[in-house]
């Protein structure tokens, strides 16, 4: 499969995302923010980093880049888009995902391993995650506290759009397991159509045992499975 990994000035997890995709035997190309077209791709990764220096607000400037107009169109047509960390922030600023990411409640930058509970397997980003499996993946952010108003939160819950929540090692959604103060311990969500998702943790940094955890692979395996099914469906 062919993936595009976006590259903004000051993206810094773009190479990690490319590495992870290639590690699983897929093609990944870096796509500069000035590109107007995605080309022939099956999925898009909006990587972590500090796009445009995080000036104004994280992701605020990236939203207006030429490549994001192409991503919007791709998403509108049902294409799979995953935003990781800064990529999640870019997707909320672009209104491809609801809510916003604000300063961590303790004002600290958190760089550590956390535990994630998968709230639903009903998405192209979670379908292959084994039932009950608690994922151990790293986070590295200063502005990852998920916020949305009551109405939006109610919608997220009603539509099963919450995909991952911070939990302790045994899967309890406690306040101490919440590294940034995110509402409902939200670590990642998807849109209503379920083809666009974003999460603050970094699955691409946890795809090989050598890196301390390969739990991130389940998220990628889910994407690959969804795309494979889609190809089969189109062919049929």
């Amino acid at each position, binding site marked *: 499969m062919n993936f595009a990994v976006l590259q903004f000035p000051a993206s810094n997890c773009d190479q990690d995302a490319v590495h992870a995709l290639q590690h699983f035997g897929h093609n990944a190309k870096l796509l500069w923010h000035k590109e107007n077209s995605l080309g022939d791709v099956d999925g898009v990764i909006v990587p972590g980093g500090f796009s445009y220096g995080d000036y*104004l607000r994280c992701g605020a*400037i990236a939203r*207006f880049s030429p490549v994001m107009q192409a991503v919007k169109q791709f998403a509108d047509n049902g294409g799979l888009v995953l935003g990781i960390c800064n990529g999640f922030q870019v997707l909320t600023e672009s209104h491809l995902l609801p*809510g*916003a990411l604000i300063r*961590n*409640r303790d004002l600290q930058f958190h760089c550590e391993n956390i535990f994630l509970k998968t709230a639903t397997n009903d998405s192209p980003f979670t379908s292959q995650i084994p039932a009950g499996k608690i994922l151990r993946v790293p986070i590295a952010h200063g502005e990852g506290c998920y916020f*949305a108003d009551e109405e939006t939160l109610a919608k997220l819950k009603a539509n099963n759009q919450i995909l991952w929540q911070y939990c302790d090692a045994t899967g309890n959604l406690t306040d101490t397991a919440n590294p940034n*103060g995110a509402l409902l311990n939200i670590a990642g969500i998807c849109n209503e159509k379920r083809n666009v998702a974003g999460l603050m943790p970094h699955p691409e940094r946890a795809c090989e045992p050598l890196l301390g955890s390969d739990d991130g692979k389940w998220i990628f395996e889910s994407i690959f499975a969804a795309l494979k099914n889609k190809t089969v469906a189109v062919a049929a």
Partner: protein
Amino acid sequence: MKAKIIITPKKAVVDPQGITVKKALEHMGYTGVTGVHIGKYIEIDLTPGTDKVAAQKALNDAAHKLLSNPVIEDYKLEIE
């Protein structure tokens, strides 16, 4: 000609910077502080003689799309 835009976090949004500064003020002995809200101040220089109504319209549009995030922030716009 100048536009001044003051951006503040919405009341429903937790503002950890504001809370921390409020605590610091209390530690320093300042009394009567019931809340601190930390936002941003943006000054935009405009071509002299720009039509104020048109500028207001354009800047409201810009404030809504780029300068503030309506999900988490409110803004106030002044042109002078």
